[in-house]
């Protein structure tokens, strides 16, 4: 059908409506220039590339977490996944990095260790996620060896129940994942700030879903509540890295403590 015929076939009111809408779109484009803000100010979570093993055991994990963050919180995110080596000069554009795997990996070089130690000591945050679904996995052994080399004088410790990670957005009773191997997270804390959090429960497996919205992996011996708990934990970890101990400010304490009391009594 030719354009002229279409125009004639439209009723006058409808034609006017289309004209106005068209002008509005054009005018809006002129008056309200779309915001293209600095991308580096948005949250990007790069996946750390390392030698040996698989650094992307759950390829959709980070993209899915980003989608959840965008849906549930006010955080502005870059959904496109970024993979980065520790030696990449752009590392310091991203104060949050994600290290996942399901197998043992090669030890980090002294330079990589130095960079990572410096990165974490001066404001960076590392989330390590064991996707192997096994207790004492090879990945776990590699991680513990890595952490021991990174911070020989600071051992990995269980994150206490009153840590801000468990209340930075959601009130979380116990940490979850696709599997429930350990009912805790572990951390390295420097000067009161958690710089490294380690989950052995395959968080990425619980987060990952395909572009059609289907979950990529089933929850092991659990329900959708467990998956929701994993997503909530992911949101909280990111929120903690962005707000630190904000939720321990006095202004929040009375309300949070009262809610926790009720929540735990359920």
């Amino acid at each position: 059908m030719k354009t002229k015929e279409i125009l004639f076939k439209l009723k006058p009111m409808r034609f006017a409506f289309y004209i106005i809408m068209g002008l509005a779109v054009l005018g809006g484009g002129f008056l309200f220039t779309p915001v293209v803000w600095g991308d580096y100010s948005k949250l990007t979570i790069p996946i750390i590339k390392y030698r040996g093993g698989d650094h992307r055991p759950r390829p959709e994990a980070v993209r899915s977490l980003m989608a959840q963050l965008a849906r549930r919180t006010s955080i502005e995110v870059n959904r496109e996944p970024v993979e980065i080596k520790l030696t990449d000069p752009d590392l310091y554009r991203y104060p949050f990095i994600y290290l996942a795997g399901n197998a043992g990996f090669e030890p980090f070089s002294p330079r990589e260790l130095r960079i990572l130690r410096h990165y974490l000591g001066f404001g960076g945050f590392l989330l390590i996620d064991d996707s192997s679904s096994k207790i004492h996995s090879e990945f776990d052994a590699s991680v513990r060896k890595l952490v021991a080399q990174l911070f020989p004088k600071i051992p990995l410790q269980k994150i206490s129940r009153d840590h801000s990670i468990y209340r930075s957005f959601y009130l979380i009773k116990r940490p979850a994942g696709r599997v429930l191997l350990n009912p805790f997270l572990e951390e390295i804390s420097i000067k009161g700030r958690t710089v490294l959090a380690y989950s052995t429960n395959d968080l990425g497996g619980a987060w990952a879903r395909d572009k059609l919205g289907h979950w990529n992996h089933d929850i092991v011996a659990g329900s959708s509540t467990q998956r929701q708990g994993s997503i909530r934990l992911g949101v909280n970890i990111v929120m903690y890295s962005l707000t630190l101990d904000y939720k321990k400010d006095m202004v929040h304490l009375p309300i949070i403590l009262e809610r926790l009391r009720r929540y735990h009594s359920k």
Partner: protein
Amino acid sequence: MNFLIEFFGSGLAEYNEWNIQWAPENSQAIAVILGVSIPLALWFFWTSLKRIPSRLKKIFLFGLRVFIFLFLGLLLLKPQLELKKSQSHKNSIAVLLDNSKSMGIKTFPREEKRMDRVLETLKANKDYLAGLKKDFNVDTFFISDHTEPASDVDVQYQARRPNTDYSKVFRDLKKHYEKKPLAGVFLFTDGADLNHSSDDPSRELVEILAGLNSPVHTIQAGTNESFKDLSIQSLLAPDFGFAFQPVNLSVSLNASSMGNKNISLVLKEGKNILISKMVEIREGKTDYQVELQFTPRDLGKRVYSLSVPLFSGESITTNNHRDFQVKVIRDRTRILHLNGRPSWDSRYLREVLVNNPKVDLLSFFILRTLSDDVAAPTSELSLIPFPSNLLFSDYLNSFDLVIFQNFRFESFIDKKLLSNIKTYVQEGGSFLMIGGDLSFQGGGYDRTPIEDILPVTMQKVGKGYSSEEFKPVVEKKLEHHPILRLEKKKASSQKTWESLPLLNGLNLGLTAKPKSHVLLGYKIEGTTIPVMATIKTGEGRTAVLTTDSSWNWNFRRVGEGGSGRYYERFWNNTIDWITNAPETRLLRLETDKERYKEGEEVLVRFNVLKEDYTPASEEKVNLTLFKVSGEREDHLLDVDKNGDGAFQFLPEREGFYSVEIELDRNGEKISDKISIGVSGETAEFDKPLVNAALLKNIANVTGGEYVILDEAKDLSGIRFENPEVRVLTNKKTFSLWDNWWSYGLLVGFLMVDWWVRRKSGLS
């Protein structure tokens, strides 16, 4: 005497006495030596004369030798002739007039001051005192904690000295009359010497009075009959307090013969009543303790006054009121930090604020918006409602700084409350907006009261935002600005700015207002886009950072091998400047002391900077001194090349003074004011009663008389002994041994002795 005068010369006629003095230092030793050696030598000599047959010659030679020895002995005793001039001298009478503050207290029933009684008595006894002056030297002194001669009593006599110390006074008197005969003392006083805890004079005073060896006649000024007074006896107030935090005062009231009444104790700052508290005064109870609490709001040296009502017939009118000064400082800078969303920019800034020990931070993050689906009931969230009404209506003034960081107000703050922020800033508050897509136009602040107070205007048809990386450039003219001072030295600071990492995300739709200072800018197509800009709005200050990527100066710089300290310093500088911290002011006033005592000179120093924070050399400033009396003195003063100047003055009396400096900068007035507290001693008003027993005791100890001046009394009954006293005025000494004629005489006697011995056949 005449013989001596003729012998030693005619210039000695003025001397009317003489005497001989002997070797004073070792005369006894010489006498012993001579007493032993001369008889021994004479005995040997007598035995040597056996060969002389002539008894006459023998006796002559022996006699001659005795004379020689005696003459020699005389010379060894070093005789000296002392000529003296002496004259008869008048005895002295000391009249001591107490000029301490307690002498200004009223005495009843005539309600006149104690010192007025003294003046009246002196006037009534004018003839008697004039008569004494014929026979005595009558010296008048004012006494208090020290002694000073009084030349004109009618003019000089004022009850102004802080306290009385009789021990010090009589010690001074004893020293003064060390060489002059003192026949007696008149002591006009009220006996209010607080150094004596009892009615008896202290042991020290008794010893001094005994050493004076003269009668002290104590003349008591006033009585304690019908003494009526209500006073603020003591006030315990801290020297400094914190803004918006309570300050406690502890007040002691004293009431004598005030009957039963309820009085109000009022605390004021200027004309504003801060607190008023009712105190029940009851007959028979004299001491009352009252606790007060108030909350200072304004910073600096604040002067407060505490008062109780003044009733008719009160003995002391000055102790119903007391001024005091509290230096009000910020305990910490209270900052309200609102974040439109969690981001790296807000996270790193929050870390700086939390780690700054001078900052008291209240921060809110908008963690979810209304369009977000949290997929959980509220009870499973840690989110709390945003208390916008409380913050922006009730507690806004309690913050020193409000920060909107990438914060869109709609949905969280009622638009009407934005005008509260404008008023808050114009009245002295501080506001900082940090960019991002939720700030400025993106936050809906165009054409709102917020735009009125910011240093930038928001273009209605925006040029949008640049997501490119950019390096902000320091505005050359403002490189001395305190916000830009990353290093002490200008060159190092400049170098540091150049070394900072690039930023990204800049709002292009902002234009600097004419009176704003663009400290950091970015040039695009010949136009400078403000990156960091400041402005003074009313009494307050505001600033904008038009990007949300300053965190790169921290974490990315760390990645480049540096540290986050310049980022930290930049933000701390910004907080200092925007909250008008003293070190960031264009005009600074300070005194060399926190408080001054009466009689101390006050030194006020000032420093003046230009708008670009370089020293305002060779500028003139108007300085105004506001005195206690209400008078003002205007001075036009110069500043040196460093912008420094000074002003000194001697406060005329106790009280509160203030110095204000004002500058006219192109029609805009810049001023600073400082309060100066000058304290006087009021201890005597704490125990204002007459101490009659002490005065009686002083009179008894010295053999003087005790007189009460309940009215002007005739003192002519008091008599003084007047023995003749001669006083040596001049003297001269002549040596009788250390001269040629005495040695010649000795040699002559020895030669005669030798010649007679030779003639007698001796060797």
